[in-house]
């Protein structure tokens, strides 16, 4: 599966030293990364991290101040529009034409990419069914609910079957079921070979879907790796959460003496968190606690999540990211 005239047949998006400022604000501060062909790549970061600015530069809506970028093997550093025939874009705002109905909106977008009339009509009907909007196809976009708007906007991004798809927070601010539907759609596109570049606040979403992710904070990439590798270091380590009736009775000192290899912390919600490189001897631990008179209600092995990694790498609390899920701007 090769195409284009890329320097590396394997890479689809190549970014090097990319930077962009707006006046005094440095939105993107010299980032470099590569997205391989057919990969589902996630761009994770808090508000104002520079995600949208990066997408804008990659898609030809913004001109980089410095650095270089190639999309599909085409150098877009000087000419932002050079690779636009290869890409589909789902912007962070659902921005179709309010006065047109769903069907006409999709046909119009197909037309922008040079699709012939019969072809785009067929494709529009097909996509309306795929996105569960066949009933809504005849209604004006202005009348759609937020989730419907989002779905149609995603449909519009893939109407011309682009080999590379950019999505800026595709599932922000919509209900769980619509989000799940969108994720499964994206999974299907990914399996059919489309290269997908996705920004999101939802760390679990990125963990579930992406092959690789980059964490971006303050315009810089602080970590970029495959999801499997990011989770790997914690795989050699075990975390057990022990729920107890009352934590104040735990004698942490005594516990640490008895289990010197474990890192012990008390978390909110009456949970004792035990981390260890060796398998945790849960039975012994529970017996020790019970002997101390602490009532154990549950002991559970915790799988380390990408969220934990994100927090560890960026120092940004998961709560902060979660709070921003609604797309709320500013502090």
């Amino acid at each position, binding site marked *: 599966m090769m195409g284009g005239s890329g320097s590396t047949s394997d890479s689809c998006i190549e970014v090097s030293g990319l930077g962009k400022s707006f006046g005094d604000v440095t939105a993107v501060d010299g980032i470099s990364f590569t997205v391989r062909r057919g990969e589902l790549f996630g761009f994770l970061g808090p508000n104002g991290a520079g995600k949208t600015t990066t997408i*804008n530069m990659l898609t030809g809506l913004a001109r980089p101040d410095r650095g270089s970028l190639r999309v599909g093997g085409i150098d877009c550093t000087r000419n932002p*529009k050079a690779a*636009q025939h290869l890409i589909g874009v789902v912007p962070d705002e659902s*921005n179709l034409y309010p006065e047109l109905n769903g069907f006409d909106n999709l046909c119009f977008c197909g037309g*922008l*990419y*040079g*699709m*012939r009339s019969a072809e785009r009509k067929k494709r529009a009907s097909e996509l309306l069914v795929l996105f569960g909007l066949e009933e809504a196809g005849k209604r004006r976009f202005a009348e759609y609910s937020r989730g419907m708007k989002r779905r149609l906007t995603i449909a519009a991004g893939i109407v011309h079957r682009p080999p590379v798809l950019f999505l800026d927070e595709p599932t922000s601010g919509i209900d769980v079921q619509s989000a799940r539907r969108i994720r499964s759609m994206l999974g299907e596109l990914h399996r059919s070979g489309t290269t997908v570049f996705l920004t999101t606040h939802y760390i679990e979403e990125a963990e579930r879907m992406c092959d690789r992710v980059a964490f971006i904070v303050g315009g810089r990439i602080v970590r970029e790796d495959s999801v499997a590798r990011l989770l790997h270091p914690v795989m050699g380590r075990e975390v057990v959460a022990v729920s107890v009736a009352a934590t104040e009775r735990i004698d942490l000192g005594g516990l640490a003496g008895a289990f010197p290899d474990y890192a012990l912390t008390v978390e909110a919600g009456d949970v004792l968190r035990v981390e260890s490189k060796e398998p945790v001897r849960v039975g012994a631990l529970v017996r020790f606690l019970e002997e101390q008179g602490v009532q154990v209600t549950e002991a559970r092995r915790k799988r380390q999540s990408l969220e934990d990694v994100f927090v560890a790498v960026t120092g940004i609390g998961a709560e902060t990211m979660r709070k921003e899920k609604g797309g709320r701007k500013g502090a």
Partner: protein
Amino acid sequence: MKRLTAFFSILGKDMRAYYFKPPNISWGLLFPVVWAGMFFIKSGGGAENIVSVLPGMVALSILFGTTSMLAVTVTFERKAKAFERLLLAPIPLGMLMLAKTGGAILFGVLNAFIPFLVGLFLADLSGVAWSVALPAIVMLAVVSAFFGLFVSVSVSEVFEAQTFSNFFRFPMIFLCGLFFPISDLPAYLQPLSYLLPLTYGADILHAAIAGKGTMPPGLDFLALFLFGLLLYLLTLRSIHRRWIL
């Protein structure tokens, strides 16, 4: 070929969504008719006066037909971010501009014929030099549309677009020799007239319809062409600088 499809998609959508909608039709049509009516009545009426009012009416129809919608739609689409779709489409910006103005140009040209249709019932139009009038109408529509686009890329709010285009449009009614000759204007205003493209368009129309041009048509056409080119280049530069961030 693909670009052509994109071009006509944009043009077709704009025609359907904006130009042939009641508010635009009323603005484009009603306004020139009312103004021309005023001048007609003021000049004392009569069939021979129809012919002398007609060039100004045609010019006004074109000016308002092209600019009343374009500037508003572009700023509106910019604000709603729908315009980003056009900037993301794989077509050169120059072509995008032409597609965006195409609807306005077409509407302006069609609009120009309405005064002719009205005039047909009231006066003898057999003396009209169509071979001059037609290209003048098209040229004037192109230049007016580029002017409208220039306005729309220079502002960011819909009301600014309206205010800014009226700031130019209304003085032009008096300054460009539409209904009375430029020589009737105070001497200090006359140089201003020659800085406005409508002056040259109206002059050709006066020559073609009533046989009363003041400058050689060749010069008028050249001036229109240069104004068109200037506005096109200024707009293109503005899009490059302001829209591709």
